């Protein structure tokens, strides 16, 4: 088996992972930084790949420059296009790169897996032309591509307005932004705004762009159906909602749209912590099952640190601070000196951010009314094309946990391992089984958590022990 050893392994090259590597390097600790992308930055600081793409975010550029500098000096070993697919006993982390699997052992490991979007099922949501806001953002940020002609952006949370403004600034018109939370909820945000001036400035800038371009932002509405014609999205229906986001189906409006970009906030990509065996706890306000953490960012496993949105969604500013804290803490544990003052400073900065993130959580956390959109024939598990009635039959025959419903119905048995169906299905199952969402349990992820081929594994050379 190919095995290599390192003091510090950092998984994920978004704001948290990059900051962790920089912080550790600044303390003289070398690290291996593993990232799936071809360029560091993660989702939020994605690097433009063609000249026609919008300019890179300055914070992302600064982080990339700092990494490049440390990398030249041999302090950070950046492995792009590399994914962690599992961990085996004695902390042997299995990575795959260039279609070859290998094992890496590390004294300390920082996991910064990030988050993905929450798109709850609703009638027509699998129609071609409906995409996640994140997918649209990748097309825009890396290639400068226009996702469609008549674009609507719908869901909840700050990503909607950000994506709309980024499209408009690139010269791509946006027909409508449909935000589930009422306007009055967003009005409360500026009270906390002074704590995060950069975020506030960005947000106000986005709104100004949209106002100038005449893009309507409709608050307190959700998309109730995507209508298909000739196999493509042709129209959407949307309706006003009450405080629980239950739509008023008597006042549905219809609009011709060919591209619908959806996001109801983010879900932590916390599988990797489960695979490592970290203790998990259920936090509805930050997206579901997240690893239990100590103030130094260690998980229940003393050699495994957790940072960024993958530990509970809080955005790029918090992710960067958490990454820095994890990097400093790991460096300290590896013997670096004079880290305490810096650790204290980052703690205080994180503390200042807390009210902002709590205010944002309160606005964008998905409300139960979204579940009312699910009908018997609505596909609830895209990978397996399962309808709600098929899953419900499993629940009615005694399946109450994700773990038992999986073999019984194939719910979550597809490649996504229930990443996408878990948030809505755990709520839905809880509803009819009269349980709390946390009682439905997390999904039970199995290796590989990222794609690896049989050939990549079979290519392992040497003696098998």
């Amino acid at each position: 088996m190919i095995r290599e050893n390192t003091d510090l392994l950092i998984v994920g090259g978004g704001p948290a992972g990059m900051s962790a590597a920089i912080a550790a390097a600044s303390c003289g600790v070398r690290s291996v930084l593993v990232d799936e992308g071809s360029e560091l930055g993660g989702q939020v600081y994605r690097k433009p790949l063609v000249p026609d793409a919008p300019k890179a975010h300055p914070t992302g550029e600064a982080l990339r420059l700092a990494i490049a500098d440390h990398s030249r000096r041999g302090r950070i070993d950046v492995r792009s296009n590399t994914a962690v697919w599992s961990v085996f006993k004695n902390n042997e982390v299995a990575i795959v790169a260039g279609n070859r699997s290998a094992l890496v052992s590390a004294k300390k490991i920082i996991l910064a897996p990030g988050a993905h979007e929450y798109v709850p099922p609703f009638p027509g949501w699998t129609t071609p032309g409906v995409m996640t806001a994140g997918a649209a953002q990748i097309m825009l940020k890396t290639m400068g591509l226009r996702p469609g002609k008549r674009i609507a952006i719908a869901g909840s949370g700050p990503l909607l307005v950000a994506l709309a403004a980024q499209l408009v600034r690139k010269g791509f018109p946006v027909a409508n932004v449909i935000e589930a939370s009422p306007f009055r909820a967003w009005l409360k945000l500026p009270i906390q705004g002074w704590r995060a001036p950069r975020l506030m400035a960005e947000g106000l800038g986005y709104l100004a762009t949209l106002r100038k371009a005449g893009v309507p932002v409709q608050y307190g509405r959700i998309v109730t159906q995507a209508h298909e014609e000739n196999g493509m999205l042709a129209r959407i229906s949307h309706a006003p909602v009450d405080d629980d986001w239950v739509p008023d189906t008597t006042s549905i409006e219809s609009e011709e749209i060919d591209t619908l970009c959806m996001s109801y906030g983010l879900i932590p990509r916390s599988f990797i912590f489960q695979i490592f065996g970290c203790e998990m706890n259920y936090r509805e306000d930050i997206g579901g099952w997240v690893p239990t953490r100590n103030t130094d960012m260690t998980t229940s496993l003393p050699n495994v640190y957790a940072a960024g949105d993958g530990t509970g969604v809080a955005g790029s500013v918090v992710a960067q601070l958490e990454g820095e804290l994890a990097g400093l803490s790991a460096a300290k544990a590896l013997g670096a000196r004079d880290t305490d003052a810096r650790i204290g400073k980052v703690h205080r900065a994180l503390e200042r951010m807390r009210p902002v993130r709590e205010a944002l959580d309160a606005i964008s956390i998905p409300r139960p009314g979204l579940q009312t959109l699910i009908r018997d024939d609505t596909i609830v598990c895209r990978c397996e094309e399962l309808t709600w009635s098929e899953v419900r039959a499993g629940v009615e025959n005694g399946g109450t946990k994700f773990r038992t419903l999986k073999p019984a119905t194939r719910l979550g048995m597809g490649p996504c391992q229930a990443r996408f169906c878990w948030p809505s299905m755990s709520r839905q199952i809880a509803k009819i089984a009269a349980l709390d969402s946390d009682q439905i349990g997390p999904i039970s992820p199995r290796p590989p958590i990222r794609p690896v081929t049989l050939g990549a594994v079979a290519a392992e050379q040497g003696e098998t022990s």
Partner: protein
Amino acid sequence: MTTTSDVVVIGAGAYGTSVAYSFAKRGQSVTLLDAANSGKATSASAGGLWAIGESLGLGCGVIFHTHEEPVNEGAGPQPVPRHFMEFLRTSSRYFPELANELGARTGMNIEAESGTGLFYLLYDATTQQHAREILNWLGHDETLAQEWGRDRVLAHDRNLAEDILGAVYFPGDNQVNPMFLTEAYKRAAIADGMRFVAEARVVDLCMAGDQITTVRTTAGDFSAGIVVNAAGAWAGQLSRLAGASIPLIPVRGQIVCTETLKPTLTCNLSTIDCYIMQKAHGEVLIGSTTEMVGYDTSVTYDRIVELAKGAVRAVPGLEGATIKRTWAGLRPGTPDELPILGREPSVANLHYCTGGFRTGIVSAPLSGEMVAAAALGERTEVPIDPYLASRFDSKLDLSHFETTAA
């Protein structure tokens, strides 16, 4: 409060749901308790219905009766006793009708295939010698096994490695979806009035004399005239609660599953390294290891590598297939590799339906029927005596099992 029924079945794997259904079909009131342990063998089974192949030990990559051990009668370990091969063939014949019956009762398709067959691929002179011994043992009965030359095998399935020397073809060895089989049994029994209790972990078996009076669980107390131990790899622990002892231990099997592929394999495959099967949903399953490591359900890197190498060796085109999952199950293993069925000698109302080991799916229909019939005083389809717990002396001798060095 105690819930009372005619029968309590403990364990909702393939054996537990099968026996519960057999009792329910006979008009008995049944309660089925499930602890949802992680590592249930049913969930880590490939669902091979290999009455003949399994009898010859081809089910786990020829792990058991390796070809170094001749399968000639009277020389070295036997594949399995002939009565058990007949047991497996009888049970295997249940599936076509069972698929219709359960389909009609539940609307579920258990994906029981017919006409798939099984190839045992011959790689070298040693496996060829093994093939000759297999064919001899089966008396050259072409309905059971046929020797196919290389060209015929490759014409049948173009995806196989070109350097094979040939194969033994088992025309009657097909496959089923083991998870859907279990779920359909459960749903059919529920339709017959069975009570299913999820998350019910047995914490005690309360006794009065030689009778179990109460099955105490995390989901309440249950009592019944007939208590069935169908707890799979946990059956030994369960019986100890009633002061009974059976030589049964968990045997870990690791398994690799690919993403959904276009129809690639025309046939089930067994090789010296592993088995390879494409399921109805398009996934290819590659298994399995045979390890005695207690209740550890983790997968190990080196074993996954071995299985991947074995798959690519047999079907080179699988190289580019993405692995969707790897996991492990705990099969209930007994010293003679036969199931434990029927009554426990020391407890008046305790019956076994367990020990399916690597034949648990193919043997589930007949095992369930036998246990229900015997418990109710009916005549069983084949004699139950060879499968009774009373066949064991007290010693737990599993020395012939291949194990991983701990």
